[in-house]
């Protein structure tokens, strides 16, 4: 996973889209989630089997190492194509700018979707 700045992330993402278009294989996937500064999973509360000095196996609950999330509110984005993975964090003050660029990127690159044809009301003309 390569961590990138917002602008470089968008640039790389465009490259991913173009690559998938050029080779005609694979799909680009993007994950978006809330990010509060916690960069590792919360440890589980499962009892661990630990051997004591006599060789007996004891089940003990290992106390959780406390995770201190930094008071930070931002949005974590990850993107993937084949084995190329990139990620970025969007801070709240950059959201507007990033959104605009991101939406343009999607619009520009997702161009193989069907257009829904509007069903024209021919019956109205026929009756008049």
């Amino acid at each position: 996973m390569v961590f990138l700045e917002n602008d470089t992330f968008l640039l790389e993402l465009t490259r991913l889209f173009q690559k998938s278009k050029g080779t005609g294989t694979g799909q680009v996937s993007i994950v978006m989630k809330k990010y509060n500064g916690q960069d590792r999973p919360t440890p589980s509360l499962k009892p661990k089997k630990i051997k004591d000095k006599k060789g007996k196996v004891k089940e003990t609950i290992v106390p959780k190492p406390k995770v201190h999330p930094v008071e930070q509110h931002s949005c974590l984005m990850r993107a993937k194509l084949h084995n190329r993975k990139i990620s970025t964090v969007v801070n709240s003050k950059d959201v507007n700018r990033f959104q605009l660029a991101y939406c343009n990127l999607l619009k520009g690159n997702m161009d193989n979707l069907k257009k829904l044809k509007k069903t024209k009301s021919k019956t109205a003309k026929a009756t008049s």
Partner: protein
Amino acid sequence: MYVSTWDDFEKAAERLYLQDPVKTRYSFSYNHKRGYFKVKMTDDDTCLQYKTEVSQDLKKMEKFINHLMRHMASKEH
């Protein structure tokens, strides 16, 4: 679980996100060759999915992620 219409997906996804904003993630994948995209919203418990081939849905999706991203980067949720 696949949802049949976008509106249903949007409503259910919003509800799911508000239940546990920290745990919930949104993912999206686009397949250029086959010409479809899928969206997914999950909190590792419930999973909502929607698949479409129509480009009009892209616009709706953009609106939704704009909204979602603003929520994620704000203090309240």
